[in-house]
């Protein structure tokens, strides 16, 4: 463990050092990520000035829902950045180098890929939203609640990590997976930001069963907020995020292990 940590810090140090060669650019890029993600929220805020609520969710409750997506994504990007951009790693031959080093493949990918500045952009937004909303939505914070929150965040990171681990394994067969990710992850994420109940049944099912973003933010948020639209779903769905996260991750991991032998390297 100590060994892994020291490797993590060695990677982090060199990653930050190289990023800060272009200091101004790094700051602008972080700010840009922050604003890009905040854009949809600002629009929602402006709309709710006129409409007050959406399916009975007021702006504070929405911000609490949003915060889960951004906090989990901020952490996700620290650990799973390399898997998110895995086709590039294959295309540029960087994965060859990973295979030539005496460490676990995922250990290296997870530890060294971190994009700290983007993580800062997303994470800060998530934390700002959480701080603004957490007190105003009337949650009575206690130890159990705090534990639930931490577990929910970890589960959310794992669910998204599993999705990208799965896409990365597909890259061993076909390198170009950008469009698949575009449709299945990025588009679905746009849906997932808002309360699940505003969509029709097909989209809801996709967000629960296919690309289970509902377990990243909607159901965990419902645990705290208990909005009336939860009546449409069984109550236990608020408690199974960790199960979904761990199961998906293990499935994706086995698929990754199985697919490794089909790695073709570049230039062939």
């Amino acid at each position, binding site marked *: 463990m100590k060994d892994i940590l020291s490797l993590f810090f060695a990677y982090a140090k*060199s990653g930050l050092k190289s990023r800060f060669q272009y200091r101004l650019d790094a700051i602008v890029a972080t700010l840009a990520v922050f604003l890009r993600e905040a854009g949809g929220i600002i629009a929602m805020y402006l709309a709710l000035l006129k409409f007050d609520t959406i399916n009975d969710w007021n702006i504070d409750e929405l911000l609490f829902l949003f915060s889960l997506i951004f906090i989990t994504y901020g952490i996700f990007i620290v650990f799973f950045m390399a898997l998110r951009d895995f086709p590039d790693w294959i295309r540029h031959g*960087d994965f060859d180098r990973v295979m*030539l*080093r*005496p460490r676990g493949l995922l250990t290296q990918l997870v530890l060294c890929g971190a994009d700290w500045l983007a993580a800062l952009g997303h994470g800060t937004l998530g934390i700002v939203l959480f701080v603004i909303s957490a007190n105003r939505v009337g949650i009575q914070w206690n130890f159990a609640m705090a534990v639930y929150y931490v577990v929910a965040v970890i589960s959310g990171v794992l669910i998204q990590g599993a999705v990208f681990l799965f896409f990365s394994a597909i890259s061993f067969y076909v390198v170009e997976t950008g469009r698949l990710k575009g449709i299945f992850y990025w588009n679905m994420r746009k849906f997932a930001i808002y309360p699940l109940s505003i969509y029709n049944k097909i989209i809801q099912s996709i967000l629960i069963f296919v690309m289970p973003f509902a377990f990243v933010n909607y159901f965990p948020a419902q645990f705290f907020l208990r909005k009336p639209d939860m009546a449409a779903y069984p109550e236990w769905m608020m408690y199974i995020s960790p199960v979904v996260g761990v199961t998906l991750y293990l499935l994706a991991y086995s698929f990754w292990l199985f697919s490794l032998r089909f*790695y073709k390297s570049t230039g062939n």
Partner: protein
Amino acid sequence: MTEKIIEVNSLCKTFKIHKRATGFKGAVKDIFHPAYERKKAVDNVTFSINEGEMVGFIGPNGAGKSTTVKMLSGILYPDSGDIKVAGYIPYKQRKEYVANIGVVFGQKSQISWDLSPLDSYEVIRHIYRIPPKKYKENLERYTELLDMGSFINQPVRQLSLGQRMRADIAAALLHSPRIVFFDEPTIGIDVVGKDKIRKFIKTLNQTDNITMIFTTHDMQDIEKTCERLIIIDDGKKLYDGSLENVKKGYRSSRIIEAEFESLPVSLTLPHAVISNADNNELKKLISFNTDEVSVNELMTALMNTHNIKDLSIREPEIDAIIRDIYEGRIVMN
């Protein structure tokens, strides 16, 4: 005492090449019924290498040499055949195995563009868990041998290609590997820079008894460093033996390049192999061995039967020898 450190037996690797269909119909069909073409990248290759040997791997582009090296270094799974390197099966025991090897890719640096070599070495030290004492010793030694003192603290983007390559070679050696693979380590570097690198590699091979595999296009690399040569073409091993032998075997070989006045008919000459050159039908290459037939004899036979416009006899350059071997004009045993 030398023992076999690399053993390869009947190694095969086939790639499926996706044939992209055209048009919209094709694109849709492509998704459900993709068409593939099979290409044997490595076809039943067998060889072994002793500890401390320095072997040049050559072959034209797409010959299968880099696929072979990638299987040797544990990056690719073979389809069939056995590989054993330093007592490990690379693709099965990757993590334990790769601690014993170093790989230098001329086209793909392992040190970060925006950092100094020293910063990158620091990360490598953690990855390989190099003990501090050994790290310090190696770092000092290679900084001196590769003459890196002046630039080891500068961002890599400010270095010349030759300096960068030297820094990359040091990076592959810091963990004291037993085997080092060099993949085109001198590509794009000027003559002086190339020479520095070759000398270093040669010295290291002799003093440290490190086994080295060298793939390259540059025959000078091989001539200046290797004693043994493995030639691969179209996935098959064409030659495996000493470099000296290739040159010696060729010492009595000559090629006449002849341009005829008119299209030569029924051109047959004793003890000579005739082939086409440069897509010019009037030009022919006549290969022969002076032990079997003298230049004089052959020229007379040629002059008597045909009108020659231009004619030259080629020197046995190593580049040409290799090219002749690829193109089947010379058959090595």
